[in-house]
């Protein structure tokens, strides 16, 4: 099947849209990785990363504008239409990932201000790495329009949910045993933020599957997160 359009301007529009999505996704990934890499080191000031969130948000606006322009001018059909219509939706998921990364920094700042040594955050390392892998994989699936890989991500998020439940119980129990403290509460919020980033990866995976197959993933996913 031919993959290029007779109208090269249409192809250029789609390439531009893909470029913006890819750029936004990679910025969201870089932001998240920078946050989780520095999260446990108390002398590592993550505040400089907060400004990046605005840059991510700006690309979302570009994606909205490009989407509207392509629909108005090119009247896309079928696979093209799905390709275009998911762009703003995926952009909003990347925007949320950026927000949650920023929230993690803010929660961590509160912990530092409260005099925490941040040691509780080591409990989140495995979760953070798992979320990072989900994000890397879903970006790869998005670039290659790989529905099988998208579906793998969709399933793999249940492991992150399970781990989140364990971490939650662990920190919670610690608070029960040793008295509740603001550090524990903030650590719970950070864990939840990481878990939500995994959820956004599954939402993006659903959109990739939809583009390729024209239908949503038709399967049940076991619900393993007990905290929401």
């Amino acid at each position, binding site marked *: *099947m031919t993959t290029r359009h007779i109208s090269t301007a249409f192809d250029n529009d789609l390439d531009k849209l893909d470029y913006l999505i890819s750029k936004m996704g990679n910025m969201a990934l870089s932001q998240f990785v920078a946050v989780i890499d520095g999260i446990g080191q108390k002398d590592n000031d993550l505040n400089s990363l907060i400004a990046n969130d605005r840059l991510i948000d700006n690309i979302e606006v570009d994606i909205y504008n490009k989407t509207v322009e392509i629909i108005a001018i090119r009247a896309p059909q079928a696979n093209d239409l799905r390709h275009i219509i998911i762009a703003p939706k995926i952009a909003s998921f990347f925007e949320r990932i950026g927000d949650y990364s920023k929230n993690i920094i803010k929660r961590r700042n509160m912990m530092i201000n409260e005099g925490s040594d941040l040691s509780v955050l080591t409990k989140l390392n495995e979760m953070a790495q798992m979320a990072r892998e989900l994000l890397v994989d879903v970006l790869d699936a998005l670039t290659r329009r790989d529905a099988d890989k998208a579906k793998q991500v969709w399933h793999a998020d249940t492991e992150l949910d399970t781990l989140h439940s364990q971490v939650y119980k662990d920190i919670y129990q610690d608070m029960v045993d040793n008295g509740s403290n603001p550090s524990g509460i903030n650590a719970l919020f950070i864990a939840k933020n990481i878990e939500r980033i995994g959820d956004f990866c599954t939402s993006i995976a659903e959109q990739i599957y939809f583009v390729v197959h024209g239908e949503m993933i038709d399967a049940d996913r076991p619900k393993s997160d007990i905290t929401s």
Partner: protein
Amino acid sequence: MTNPTKLSTHDLNVFYDEKQAINNISMAIESNKVTSFIGPSGCGKSTFLRCFNRMNDVIPACRVEGQIMMGDQNINDPKLDPVLLRARVGMVFQKPNPFPKSIFENVAYGPRIHGLVSSKSETADVVEDSLKRSGLWNEVYDRLHDPATGLSGGQQQRLCIARAIAVSPEVLLMDEPCSALDPIATTIIENLINELQERYTIIIVTHSMQQAARVSQNTAYFHLGHLIEYGATKEIFTNPADPQTEAYISGKIG
């Protein structure tokens, strides 16, 4: 929801001399729905459309083989009178082609020659009713005896639709009915198609994919004389099953 079948072809083949234009097409057209035929130039969609009212009879080199059923009648039967058939299966062409007569006479002609009217007042009633149903009445009621050729292109096309429906057909064939019209006149005709489907089964050939998507409930995609895909318009334009259909509607083949 599926309506009863109005027309169906069975192993239909059409040849222009030795060249085969239509290859073994079997399909059913639902009654009181709009079915659009799409495909690149030369794909056979107009040839196929013209089979339904035997318009190919007038082309000496053209040979139509196979069955086309309307009810229990094979309309491809050489014994069938094509003139009577064309009263049941009306046609509207790409370029509006009113007779060089008055607006009134254009519409009255068909009912008269088919003996559907027996008095002046009855003729006037049919003319008024047909012009109303084609959405033209309000624009021409005070100048019915003016020459039809003085109307605008869009009005002429609606006059041709009035002329076609004046003989109470069951089916309306439209061969690119809007390709010579401006966007406003096109929208008016598309509205009309929407209204007319309550009474008639409509088949429209169009090069405008957007038009097919807007006006029809079913769409058939033709390529090189073959029926590639046929189904609900909504499916064809959102998630076509055949990669050839996908390529065509997305503008990927010339």
